[in-house]
């Protein structure tokens, strides 16, 4: 099954596309910052629950299932090939030769690795399931001007977040600055401010409308392309061509026979679209283009973003205070290691 937009009216569907783009983005960092299998598992299953509420268990599981073996292998490799030399020895995978020692810490981090990867994938899936492609592009497109008061507010908020984030993640580096504590913090504050201004400028600029339109038309016609491919294979079958042959060389031939007509169909389609959008005055005045759909952050968006940022910062804080692997410590305590 393809990973595509599913119609619906769930919590995730109602979120602003920008919130969901942020979600997919932030989850990468959450996955990097939290290194404990139980915590990552909890986050993963909560996210999955949200997904099930949005598009149902069938859709969520179907596509997730395809990546499970891959990440399972990642986890397994981590366990087998990256044993912690100081870790608690469990057993040898190849006993008679004392090869491939399995260590408790690696097992735990292997499980963690699995959940971290699958969490990122799920976050991206949910973004795609619940956001119509056109809205996604709209989320990336610059619309109108923001007032300067609003800009200052956003920049200050970003700067505070950056300030805390830097202190949590780069504390060692900051300590090495040859300055008194106040001076160190001032430097961090300035860097945080500059970073947030750059982020704001990049973020608010968005994609130019021409590119955004290209993207959204591309998304809108993906379905058509699938249809065209079907038409071509139908035509070939109707002429007695076996499109599902058993041997490999014949299969490659089938694909080659498809390439040419699809190539033509695509070129034709691109030409048609170029004519169609011009006939609808697309180049009338692209900069002054207006948008029917208004993207407005609602309360739920703010709550959701706060939770995301909260999660990220909790992960960073756990790292900062050195409480990175509670599960590992718990297991060790339980077995008196």
């Amino acid at each position, binding site marked *: 099954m393809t990973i595509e937009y599913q119609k619906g009216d769930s919590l995730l569907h109602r979120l602003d596309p920008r919130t969901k783009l942020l979600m997919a983005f932030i989850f990468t960092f959450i996955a990097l910052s939290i290194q404990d299998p139980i915590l990552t598992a909890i986050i993963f299953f909560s996210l999955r629950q949200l997904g099930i509420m949005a598009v149902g268990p069938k859709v969520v599981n179907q596509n997730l299932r395809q990546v499970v073996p891959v990440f399972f292998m990642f986890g397994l490799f981590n366990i087998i090939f990256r044993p912690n030399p100081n870790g608690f020895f469990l057993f040898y995978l190849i006993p008679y030769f004392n090869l491939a020692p399995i260590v408790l810490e690696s097992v735990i981090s292997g499980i963690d690795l699995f959940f971290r990867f699958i969490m990122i994938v799920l976050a991206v899936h949910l973004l795609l399931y619940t956001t119509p492609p056109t809205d996604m592009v709209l989320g990336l497109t610059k619309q109108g001007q923001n007032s300067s008061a609003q800009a200052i507010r956003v920049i200050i908020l970003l700067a505070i977040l950056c300030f805390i984030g830097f202190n949590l993640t780069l504390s060692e580096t900051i300590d090495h600055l040859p300055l008194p504590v106040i001076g160190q913090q001032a430097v961090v504050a300035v860097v945080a401010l500059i970073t947030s201004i750059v982020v704001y400028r990049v973020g608010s600029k968005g994609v130019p409308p021409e590119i955004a339109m290209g993207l959204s038309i591309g998304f809108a*016609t993906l379905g058509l392309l699938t249809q065209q491919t079907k038409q071509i294979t139908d*035509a070939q*079958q109707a*002429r007695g*061509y076996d499109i599902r042959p058993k041997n490999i060389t014949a299969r490659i031939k089938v694909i080659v026979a498809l390439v040419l007509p699809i190539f033509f169909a695509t070129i034709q389609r691109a030409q048609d679209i170029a004519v169609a959008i011009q*006939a609808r005055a697309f180049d*009338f*005045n692209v900069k002054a283009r207006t948008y029917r759909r208004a993207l407005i952050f609602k309360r739920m968006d703010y709550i959701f973003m706060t939770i995301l940022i909260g999660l990220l910062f909790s992960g960073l804080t756990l790292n900062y205070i050195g409480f990175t692997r509670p599960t590992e410590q718990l297991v060790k305590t339980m077995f008196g290691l």
Partner: protein
Amino acid sequence: MDHDIEFHNVTFTYEDAPTPALVDIDLAIKPGETVLITGPSGSGKTTLVSCLIGLVPQFHEGRLEGKITVLGRDIRRTRIGVMASKVGLVFQDPESQLVTAEVIDEVAFGPENLGIPRQEIEQRVKDAIKVARLEGYEQREPINLSGGEQQATAIAAIYAMHPEIYVMDEPTSNLDPLGTRQILSLIVDIAKKRGKTLVIVEHKLEEVLPLVDRVVVIDKGRIIRDGPVNDVLAQGDIPGVFTRPPLVQLADRLGLDTVPLTAEEIEPQLTPRLKPGPAPLPPPNGIEPAGEPVIEVADVWYSYGQDTPALRGVNLTVRQGEFVAIMGRNGSGKTTLVRHLIGLTQPDRGTVTVLGKPVAQTPITELAQRVGFCFQNPIHQMVSFYVKEELAFGMKVRQYSDDRIAQASQEALAFVGMSDYMEAEVMSLGKGLMQRLALASVLTLQPDILIVDEPATGQDPQMTVEIFDLIKRLNEQGKTVLLITHKFGFAAQYAPRAVVMNRGQVTFDGAFSDIVADQAFLHTNSLDQLEISRLAARLGPYGIPPWIVGVDHMLSELDRATRQPA
């Protein structure tokens, strides 16, 4: 500014084209005029309307001589976007011009480009959707709409831009007969309501002539006739270029001093000559009991998804050597049904047997040998670069010898009258030739059964006659033919047996003569009664049978019913 549109001595040659697409065009269209442009495929109609927003020569490049002014602007010096803000152009193929993921976005796209404020866009979109009768379709995906709905969406999208001039390039080529009438009257309503100029390119003269003020006939890039509807019709047919509707021909051949577009116009001229006669005889049964059944469809159900089923218990038996026309509204399940006959689609329930073989257990590769299948859009059927390879495709799959391939290709191409095109490139062929090539490629395998899905889409009347003649000849050679078509008039004259489908069921299966006069039945199936049949029905009291579909038949019946001079 006296005229909205002015062409002064315009000649245009596409880049790399040997001959000009438009030659010495002089044309002036007044504000508020409704003008029909007609002529054979490839005569330059689309090029002409493309000039109106500057697509020619700014996008489609070439050499333009003379001057074209639209709403006082020189189209060479004005950006396409600016022209398009004043001239609303709807193209022939609605599918290719829909660019967004929802109907409502599609309608808003134009106004957004014009920088209309958000609130006004909302209002315009609402109005346009209402005018185009698309309420309830706002969130639907354009690519999943029927042809008529797509066409209505394309029109709504232009309406929302509030253009000064509406230009429609063959807006009904994919539509069923009733859909055609609805879209045409929708277009004319929209333009007239706003008092705007309307230029419409169309082949379907019988439907469109009553709605327009003026007719321009184009052939080989030249305007060969231009004037008010009656004047242009009074000048007669131009073979291969301009064929007048049957009623006009009838009046002409009877020597009447009138140019009738509807049955009501000609009736009072005929009745004084006729003598009241006995009620018409019951319709002759046109279907002779034929040979063995070659296609048997038993209680077939099929659905594409969770939606209402596309086929709901279809039963159909076709015998060796029959010629069956399958008709019905857009989306009634015609194509879905014939796809079952070659195994491209397998039924959810029920069985299909073709030439004694159960389709479910027979590989398509085997069926394709004996059942020739022509798809609706010939472009979708093309799988090769060159005509030669296209013809050989099916035979190569079967590993025929080179000699045999060459001979069969030659014969098939000669049959469709394209012997000179053996070395041509497929994509360089026009629509008519491509349709004939599709037919020829299928014929190379010598199939027993021929399935042709709407061969007349986007073809001009001359090409339609040619393709129907070819199919008829194949039938006479003994091939069983199933033909899906919206061309009710053609079908009634060529095929004895009609199968009408509606909402996934066969609602009629029998002789054409039983339905041509049944207006209520035709309407519920989105077919449209021919004007000549309507006339026949009105002349019932004079002994004219109501199942007449052709001019010649009508003439002989009129002759029989004419009062003998005392």
